[in-house]
């Protein structure tokens, strides 16, 4: 802006020759600086004479340059600056144990569930061996687990997964195994989609607050940007099409190319569930702008509220919109509590995306023995039904206890219907209603109350004071301990 005015002056003869020559000089100067920065460093800064004595070359460290890694690798090794990771690290130094370390830090920052471990354990001890070792005729045939198999996952696994996903989403939508690619977890699933749908420098719109891990999963290697679409507590943090529209237009003005929108539903960290109407509206919006929609439905089986969960697959199937722009990610880490197994899914209505994703799976596929276990597990319909019922019930119970406990302290939570966490409004405990105040509270929670909860800032929430608290790895007796610690902290803050 500032450059245009003097130029105009030059053209119109005002400000004249001085400005007219100054600006090109400045531009030239900056151009030189830019080019210098871009030029590759001298490739052999230490051009040593070829010597026949090898020991000479290798003995004096000072004269040999340190070899560099790529510029995209540099940020990866840096110590984490997000409270999300900082909190996780701190718990490791002093983890709470209800017997051996009652003063330790209680982990509320990791969205994991151990509520139905007893059921899974029982299944594993009864079925694990068979599921890996047995082939059709009951004899162990090592080739069934040792040899190369299609990277996108065994057909039987895709069939079992399709059936499983349909079941946990209420049986209202069916999934087609041929549109599915099995990945080594949800993390590679989202990255592969980002690689397929957007070029380096393009962007995804993403409603806030969002899962902090997306920052790494999407940005680390793809070069795709995330543009936040801010949501507010007044809407219970539900995204609106007008907010999307605004963000889209602003991005365009800035010269950013938006390739798609990324949602999580049930959402993380808030835990709300998008209504059928909202899903329809979002798809129409994407159609209008000709962009992709990516739905991370990783918590679809962890729905405990009254609100019905609707998969985007169901909306896409309903026909009046071009569904090749719809892509869904799923994984077993949350609903089935087995993140260690590393099994996720990319489900896409776009043939070419499925085709490209299949080929990219060579970099992130699931080991065959684990696939065999999963085929067995996911096809055990009786067990899955038993598990899902228990899972939902137990989350609901834990959720009620946790939220009630907070309520008694005068701390409200956002309405939520799914996920392994609740979105807690601790703004009444802030000394200043700001990001700074929130981070101070985060620190106090960690060091004084010894609780790790993820602050909204880590999730790019625009309103200060919100914290994500995961409760599905807690025993009932842990909850009063937590509430007590928070109460004490609250008292000390309020006094």
């Amino acid at each position, binding site marked *: 802006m500032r450059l245009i005015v003097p130029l105009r002056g030059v053209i119109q003869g005002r400000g004249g020759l001085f400005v007219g020559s100054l600006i090109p000089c400045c531009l030239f100067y900056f151009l030189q600086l830019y080019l210098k920065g871009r030029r590759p460093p001298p*490739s*052999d800064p*230490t*051009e040593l004479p070829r010597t026949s004595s*090898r020991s000479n070359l290798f*003995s004096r*460290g000072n004269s*040999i340059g340190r*070899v560099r890694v*790529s*510029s*995209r690798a540099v940020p*990866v*090794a840096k110590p984490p600056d997000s409270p999300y990771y900082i909190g996780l690290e701190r718990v490791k130094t002093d983890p709470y144990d209800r017997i051996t370390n009652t003063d330790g830090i209680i982990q509320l920052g990791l969205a*994991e569930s151990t509520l139905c471990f007893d059921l*899974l*354990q029982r299944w*594993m*001890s009864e079925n*694990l*061996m068979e599921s*890996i070792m047995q082939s059709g005729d009951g004899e*162990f045939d*090592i*080739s069934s*687990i*040792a*040899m*190369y198999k299609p990277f996108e996952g065994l057909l039987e696994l895709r069939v079992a997964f399709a059936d499983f996903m349909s079941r946990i989403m209420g049986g209202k939508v069916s999934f087609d195994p041929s549109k599915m690619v099995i990945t*080594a977890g949800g993390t*590679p699933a989202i990255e592969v989609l980002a*690689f*397929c749908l957007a070029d380096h420098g393009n962007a995804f719109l993403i409603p806030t607050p969002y899962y902090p891990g997306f920052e*790494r*999963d999407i940005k*680390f*290697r793809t070069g795709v940007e995330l543009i936040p679409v801010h949501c507010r507590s007044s809407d219970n943090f539900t995204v609106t099409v007008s907010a999307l529209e605004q963000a889209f237009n602003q991005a365009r003005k800035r010269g950013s190319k938006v*390739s798609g929108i990324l949602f999580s539903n049930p959402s993380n960290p808030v835990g709300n569930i998008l209504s059928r109407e909202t899903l329809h509206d979002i798809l129409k919006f994407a159609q209008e*702008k*000709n*962009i*992709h929609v990516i739905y991370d439905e990783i918590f679809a089986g962890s729905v405990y509220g009254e609100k019905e969960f609707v998969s985007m697959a169901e909306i896409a199937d309903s026909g009046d919109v071009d569904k*090749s722009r719809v892509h869904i990610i799923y994984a077993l880490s949350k609903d089935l*509590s*087995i*993140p*260690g197994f*590393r099994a996720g899914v990319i489900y896409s209505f776009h043939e070419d*995306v499925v085709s*490209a994703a299949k*080929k990219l799976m*060579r*970099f*992130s*596929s*699931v*080991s*065959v*023995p684990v696939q065999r*276990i999963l085929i067995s597990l996911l096809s055990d319909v009786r067990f899955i039904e038993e598990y899902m019922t228990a899972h939902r019930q137990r989350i609901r119970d834990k959720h009620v206890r946790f939220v009630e406990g907070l309520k008694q302290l005068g701390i409200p939570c956002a309405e939520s219907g799914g996920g392994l966490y609740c979105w807690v409004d601790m703004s009444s405990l802030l000394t200043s209603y700001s990001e700074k105040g929130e981070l101070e509270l985060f620190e106090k929670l960690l060091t004084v109350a010894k609780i790790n909860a993820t602050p909204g800032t880590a999730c790019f929430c625009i309103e200060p004071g919100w914290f994500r608290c995961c409760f599905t790895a807690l025993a009932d007796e842990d909850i009063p301990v937590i509430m007590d610690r928070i109460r004490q902290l609250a008292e000390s803050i309020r006094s």
Partner: protein
Amino acid sequence: MGLPLMMERSSNNNNNNVVELSRVAVSDTHGEDSPYFAGWKAYDENPYDETHNPSGVIQMGLAENQVSFDLLETYLEKKNPEGSMWGSKGAPGFRENALFQDYHGLKTFRQAMASFMEQIRGGKSRFDPDRIVLTAGATAANELLTFILADPNDALLVPTPYYPGFDRDLRWRTGVKIVPIHCDSSNNFQITPEALESAYQTARDANIRVRGVLITNPSNPLGATVQKKVLEDLLDFCVRKNIHLVSDEIYSGSVFHASEFTSVAEIVENIDDVSVKERVHIVYSLSKDLGLPGFRVGTIYSYSDNVVKTARRMSSFTLVSSQTQHMLASMLSDVEFTENYIRINRERLRRRYETIVEGLKKAGIECLKGSAGLFCWMNLGFLLEKKTKDGELQLWDVILKELKLNISPGTSCHCSEFGWFRVCFANMSENTLEIALKRIHEFMDRRRKF
């Protein structure tokens, strides 16, 4: 690139409303449209089977090791009480496996890998378990290292002939280029300092920044180990140019005589200077030596703390499931089993190699003197009508259609000499190998008659 017109439009307000995909998605760098895939297709459509389809296509293009399956089977069945190896017994086992998703990897498994890698090298080098980063296969390891060592449009120098998969693994998502280091039969395809300099200069002339050299040792497709002197020269070169050295040692356990293999680890072992060491990285996997490609277990072993830390974090895109780690940890720590396995596997591969080379010799065909791997490098140059790429592909097509053998032509490996073919021998029974040799004999006899 042959993109349909609508995909090239960059504006969002596209009246045709066909949504765009990325360059990565539409690129053909995955290589599956290349002519060699006709070979795979032919096999898929008409696969050889000893009993049911004895005239089908014999797959000699897949470097898979099936010669020692019986050893694995026996171990898994017998030395595995109550499925303990699978982690099914007891509460702690399952809990740990189910939740554990730390990109550091199970300590016991990393220790087992380090120990196994040491054994393969006859104890000539030590491996520190904390320098091991786990990835879902060597394919992922090579790609991950490339992301870390080079930026888009930078280059890695790779000696030819090389594994065709590198074109995809090193370049597709990374945007990094490969500049070939040309090697030829005049010195058994060994890398020379002149070839290195020439490749480096070629890159510089094209204004491409070279970030490292990537070798495979033992070599795929040559089936030969890299000489110690060459390794020393390579490290020398990398130090002078201040670039990285990646050694993919995925076939290190498949060396016929242990004494013939020198790992780059041995060269680096005696160097104290960190600035020399930290440019060296080794890739390994259980897919070839242990015949377990389905398990998807690969590693990056780096002498650079920074690369270890970075690779670890990036490995979240390609983790090995904790179940798999648990399963293999006990097997790989069982020294009695691994020593036995390594020794017998080597012997069997050597015998296979001798069988095929002798058989080919009797048919009048020479191979490069090999010392490792699951394949031999066969010279059919004398059969070519024209010593060109087309000439070679024509011959390859004849071998596929008439002999029903799927082998890999040298051009797919970017070999600068025409007429060389890689022939795999470890992914079939001895009988099948005999049949393949018989077909070759008959073909050569027919040819001689003309």
